[in-house]
């Protein structure tokens, strides 16, 4: 039978949203093959986790031990290798998250299982696995076949499917942890919270998001002036923080902040999925980008295909005029 395993991802005592997407997606794939979905929980004090997950899977396998309280790819790899060998699933699904990226390639390599990463779609037909991946800054999609293997493993990008309410009642199977201490060569020490600054972009009604299209630090003042004119706050994409032009707490996206302003104006931002993840729920999105094929235009409500150095000053003037 073609069963599917989905790994439950949690952090600091909470199940992460990607988990329910994996469970929803995994369950649909399993049902198409008349198989079962098994949710795998590695954690500590997992009672609440099990309660939440059991509605979403046919089976839940739980290994509860202190060593799994915080994520360490090494301990998880050890335990999962064991579980996968025993369960022999057709496919194992892991989130394409900071957690999954650290875990999947090494785990699959250890097991000799064909794998690929960052999938946005999975089809299974005649025991063949075909996935959709994104290449070239999100400007191309590709269909990719996994090579034939005894089992398969994938990381799935968040947002690939919407999590659905669960209506199952899984059988719960508790198992012993096959590893009980962290290895000397890789130890989790602590989580360190991101520094907080004086501006909270999550509270602003109007955000002007600036990206690499701004080219030089000297041009940042143009964006500051524009934001001031419109009564907004400056936020940015990751490269602006990488270059130290703005502090980390201004970064919008998966490794930055999630914002929901009334208006988000994206200036010189291409629209990588990691950025979109942080701003797609803004009420209105306006994008200014000179590249008509920039993925940001798939997300925006209004688009201006033009040189930002021409549009931003002109728009600032119009807004100033209107205010008078």
């Amino acid at each position: 039978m073609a069963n599917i395993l989905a790994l439950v991802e949690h952090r600091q005592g909470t199940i992460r949203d990607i988990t329910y997407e994996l469970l929803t997606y995994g369950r649909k794939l399993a049902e198409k093959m008349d198989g079962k979905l098994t949710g795998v929980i590695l954690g500590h004090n997992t009672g609440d986790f099990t309660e939440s997950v059991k509605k979403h899977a046919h089976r839940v396998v739980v290994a509860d031990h202190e060593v799994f309280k915080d994520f360490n790819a090494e301990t998880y790899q050890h335990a999962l290798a064991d579980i996968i060998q025993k369960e022999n699933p057709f496919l194992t699904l892991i989130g394409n998250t900071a957690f999954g990226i650290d875990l999947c390639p090494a785990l699959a390599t250890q097991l000799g299982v064909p794998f690929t990463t960052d999938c946005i779609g999975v089809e299974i037909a005649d025991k063949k696995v075909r996935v959709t991946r994104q290449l070239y800054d999100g400007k191309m999609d590709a269909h990719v076949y996994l090579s034939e293997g005894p089992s398969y493993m994938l990381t799935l990008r968040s947002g690939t499917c919407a999590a659905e309410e669960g209506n199952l009642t899984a059988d719960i199977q508790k198992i012993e942890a096959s590893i009980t201490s962290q290895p000397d060569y890789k130890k989790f020490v602590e989580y360190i919270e991101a520094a907080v600054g004086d501006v909270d972009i999550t509270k602003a009604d109007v955000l002007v998001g600036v990206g690499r299209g701004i080219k030089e630090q000297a041009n940042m003042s143009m964006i500051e002036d524009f934001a001031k004119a419109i009564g907004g706050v400056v936020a940015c994409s990751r490269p602006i923080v990488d270059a130290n032009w703005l502090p980390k707490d201004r970064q919008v996206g998966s490794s930055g902040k999630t914002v929901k302003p009334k208006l988000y104006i994206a200036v010189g931002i291409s629209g990588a999925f990691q950025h979109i993840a942080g701003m797609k729920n803004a009420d209105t999105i306006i994008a200014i980008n000179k590249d008509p094929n920039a993925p940001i235009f798939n997300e925006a409500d209004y688009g201006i295909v033009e040189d930002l150095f021409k549009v931003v000053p002109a728009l600032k003037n119009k807004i100033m005029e209107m205010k008078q």
Partner: protein
Amino acid sequence: MDLIVCIKRVPQTAEAEVKIDGSGKDIVKDRLTFDMNEADSYALEEAILLKEKSGGNITAVSLGSAEAEDTLRIALAKGADSAIRIKLEDFGELDGFKTAALIREAIKDIKFDAILTGCMSTDDSYYQVGPTLAEMLGIPHATLVSKIEVADQKAHVHRELEGGLIEHLEMSLPAVFAVQTGINEPRYASLIAIRRAAGKEIKVIGKEEISSEAKLNSTLEELFIPPVGERAEILTGTPDEVSKRTAEIIKEKGLI
């Protein structure tokens, strides 16, 4: 500390028009510019900073076509001591797994304390080479690395997670670090250094020197343009006209 840095030469596609070529499996590359993969340039800089602190040697490795030697020369100009190109043309279709297997073969006689890679490349976005290579070598790894501090063969490593949360790890060496962008400020190579690097030898190895049993994990079937959902309403006209219309839209929403 002896270090190996893995570097890839990639097309710069963020601002370019990207088209599918006749094979249906690749993009038209002749009008694109190429550069060192962004995350790899941070990995290289991190290696140079580690070397500046504790001495040692840096070997830059690239699996690429002959043009990748230009990218390796930039690495030499910035501070790498030697460079190896693995002949892309010798090994057919690749994925992250086979790439890692070939790099493993290419570095098997090199002594090292750490291998640095970028956390992913912007062309095929695998996120695979670093952690896969580590597993093949039987050494620990960390991905999305945003800080490395080494003392007494121990590394204190930060990984950057969702929302900017940091995971702090203690690791022993040797290890593989897949570096995230923003970990440092990559330097520019000086003109003198570039000129000096032009004369340095790059070791080129191909199927005569290395072989790999590694099979592909995956095969690309076809490329296609991503389906678009509901696209933005594109405002057209002169910068002045689109600005006027945009300002009106913002006003209609009650935000001016």
